[in-house]
């Protein structure tokens, strides 16, 4: 299957990723009015429940590096959508979109994860307007 077909398949499947993660409510943790899209190298992966997480080092215009913590779905949802613990590796450069933490700490609820070669990975957010999620 060529990349165009893969990309189209990913887009077609995106709405299905709107299925709700049930562990916690979205609005008590994240701000839907603070969408973020960040690119950086993966520094750590936590293949854990209730949510898997990956951390990326993001450099701003002044060169300052901030380590962002992106929350994914539960391992169970990720596994059922094709992920394994080896899908993302330390050092991979990813562009991740999501919604920033209410508290202002560098955390986000991931709605989209894309590798440097364009491969889009499944991400599940329970943001109320998930269908309008920004895509990198």
């Amino acid at each position, binding site marked *: 299957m060529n990349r165009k077909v893969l990309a189209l398949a990913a887009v077609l499947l*995106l709405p299905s990723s709107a299925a*709700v993660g*049930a562990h916690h*409510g979205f609005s008590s943790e994240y701000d839907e009015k603070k969408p973020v899209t960040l690119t950086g190298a993966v520094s750590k992966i936590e293949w854990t429940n209730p*949510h898997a997480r990956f951390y990326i080092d993001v450099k701003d215009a002044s060169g300052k590096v901030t380590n962002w913590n992106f929350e994914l779905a539960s391992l169970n949802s990720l596994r059922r959508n094709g992920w394994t613990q080896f899908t993302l590796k330390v050092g991979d450069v990813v562009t991740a979109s999501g919604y920033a*933490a209410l508290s202002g*700490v560098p955390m986000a609820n991931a709605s989209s994860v894309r590798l440097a070669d364009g491969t889009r990975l499944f991400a599940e957010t329970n943001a109320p307007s998930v269908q309008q999620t920004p895509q990198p």
Partner: protein
Amino acid sequence: MTSRKAQGTRLKVQVTTLAVCLVAAAIPIAAQQGQAPGGGGSELSTNVNLGGGSGWRGTVPSGPVPRLPDGTVDLAGVWQGGGPGGSNGGLERGLAKGETIPILPAAKAAMAARGPLDNTEALCLPAGVPRVPSAYPWRMVQTPTHRKATHIFILFEANIHTFRQIFMDGRKHPADLDPSWYGHSIGWFEGDTLVIDTVGFNDRHTLDGNYPGTTQKHIIERWTRKDLGHMVNEITIDDPGAYSRPFKVTYPATLRVGDEIMEYICNENNQIGIAGGYIKPQ
């Protein structure tokens, strides 16, 4: 050089793959449309309850209700749904059209005062009954397996990774129950409907992440398998500590052939409250 025949075969594969993706995408979309709050009713096609165990893209099987050798309806298998799930608003979704939740004023005030960290599920504590089973896949196990069960177990994938036990051997509820998360359940069959009667709850969990429950809660579940792939759970909630009268909510469940419940240890890495600003990062 790739032959024209090979190119044609590859194109067919791509088109087939796209068609599969379209169908796979359409199933959850339809399910989400049924999740809109206030949708009411209990139609199988309009009240699907996905949750953290979502993402499974198998097909719900069709066929007659399976039975044990003695004729008892067989409920064993991995299922999804059948309750209000983990999301707020799940209780309203199970109401019949025009019905309301008869919450008492004091309970309503307590509900409004609840903070985000008062959600037991977010704290990796059991979600209680009838909130589970539903949001994640669960397996119903009957023992013995070849005739009417004396015990039924509901194994939960989450949240949390645990189980309920239903005594089907004719015993009654003990008089001196300690309050507990899942209560004490006894069950029996009325025709093809499994009736589960549960009392002895604590007051720490909610009915759906929102509506409260008290130690006076009495839950009667009526599980009816409609066909091979579908079951309906009609739940009567009688809790005079929080509601002015008994009321009913109904939820469908679907069989997940080929799926298995998975491990889910919620407190392994629970970072609840840090993004929300309620707990400071260590």
